[in-house]
């Protein structure tokens, strides 16, 4: 079924988006895994590992900001890019298109809250 693969295939460790760059698309993972990392005091910290069906790069579409993290393929990964213009036009016509993204963002906020609480409890 190799002929039917959609998106672009990235080999292991290849950077898909780089922290600090301007983003004009978001991505949906079609197959494989990617890791999300962020530089803190010259150290690269892994924030998350995402899998097929997960979305990344959406934050740069909603704000006019640069990429907040670097995303790399973890093993071979296949990723479909979603054009900023295509996505925002779709959301403008049909706001429910953003529902799934909001659900994921909401889940991330929950996870972050839990992480903050855990760190504070450690203090």
């Amino acid at each position, binding site marked *: 079924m190799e*002929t039917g*693969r959609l*998106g672009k295939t990235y080999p292991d460790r290849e950077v898909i988006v780089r922290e600090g760059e301007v983003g004009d698309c978001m991505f*949906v993972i079609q197959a494989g895994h990617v890791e999300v990392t962020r530089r803190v005091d010259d150290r690269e910290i892994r924030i998350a590992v995402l899998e097929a069906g997960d979305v990344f790069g959406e934050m740069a579409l909603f704000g006019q900001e640069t990429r907040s993290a670097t995303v790399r393929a973890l093993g071979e990964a296949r990723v479909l890019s979603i054009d900023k213009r*295509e996505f925002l036009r779709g959301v403008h016509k049909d706001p*429910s298109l953003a529902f799934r993204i909001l659900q994921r963002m909401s889940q991330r906020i929950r996870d972050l809250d839990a992480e903050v609480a855990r760190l504070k409890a450690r203090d």
Partner: protein
Amino acid sequence: MQARGAEDKRLKLDSGSHVGVVGGGPAGSFFSYFLLRFAQRVDMDIHLDIYESRNFSVPGPAGCNMCAGVISESLVQILAVEGINLPPEVVQRGINSYVLHMEMGSTIIYTPLDEMRIATVYRGSGPRGVQQLKWSSFDGYLLELAVANGANLVRSRVSGITWNGGKPEVQIKGKPPQAYDLLVGAVGVNSPSLGLFEKLDFQYQQPKVRRTFITELEFGVDLVRTQFGNSMHVFLLNLPKLDFASLIPKGDYVTLCLIGTDIDRKFVESFLDHPVVKECFPADWALAPDACHCSPKFSTADALHPFADRVILIGDSGVTRFNKDGIGAAYRTAKAAAMTAIFEGISAKDFQKHYWPACRAISHDNRFGKLIFAGARLIKKMRYPLYGVLRMVKKEQQRLASQRQMSMVLWDMFTGSARYRDIFFRTLHPYFLARFLIEMVLAIFLASRRDTN
């Protein structure tokens, strides 16, 4: 669109409501999927039946909904955002480019991101005579998605639709009639079931149609890859009868799709015999006499009054896109209908206010589409404008994606990836027109110099 024995304010879906969907193609499956998802979000328990007699896992006409089988770039992206990621078992081939063929030459045009973002699929399980089922049906995949979200699949042909106490009622042979709070027509213009909705007497009229010709050419996966690659092949040839022709690579097969007037087997043979077309095929190749083929209808104008109280028609039985992206139109109309039914109501007034704008947007856009295709028909008869197109496209391939104006106009026109209105206004941009004019003048100049020499 008169009310049928019920007041508008009572025409809403609630927990326990019954919804019937006639037709389990993309429009019916998208509608069912979204209706059940939206209902879940507002804690509404809906019982939904999909009537589909076809078995999409059977190869050949019995399991096929007859279509060229191209999922546009914009739809692939939107579906991914919706969480519907088309698997490689369903996608026959990812497309990242197209080859434009004209009498004076050919050129390849790549997607700006060099990424597979167009999917070619089979609506059923492949052509008649397929030896091994390697891929799954696109329609079957969407239907399974709807069933996984709670739809009940009724594998029977609908024999009649009537009104009973203000509610539409579906009849199938050997079973008592089933009344529904909402009945959805998603049968497509090729189904005789569409006539059953006309008999419901709410002034619904089927859309005007035209026939296209589709035939399947078997090459085997290796030859498809080496001969056609991941490119759709599009032909702008000055042949009488023919508006548009494309070769769409799939897994083991290539689908030939011809749109025009009175396209028959004889014309197909003469098309395949054209020197430009022959270049695409291996030297010793010939069309198999028993190649799977069909002449499905497709809409050329909108249906009239595609809704009433408790009844709505979606997909190409309502309004669809002109010449391209019928599955994209099925998605848009199905989702608009599902949103209206869950969040607004199921009266004719609700559909007029909340569903019809989605159809009207497609319909208005089609006017630009008709202008664009009329322009293409005109240009393909004229030698120098065609040279201008070819020269412009070839030069653009060396430039940044944002500077490929002609390539993107053709890409969006042939793949159905953008609104026709956007494409039309891009062709009126002074820079586009100036460059096109310059390339055309250069073509005339070079031709005259050749003649002088």
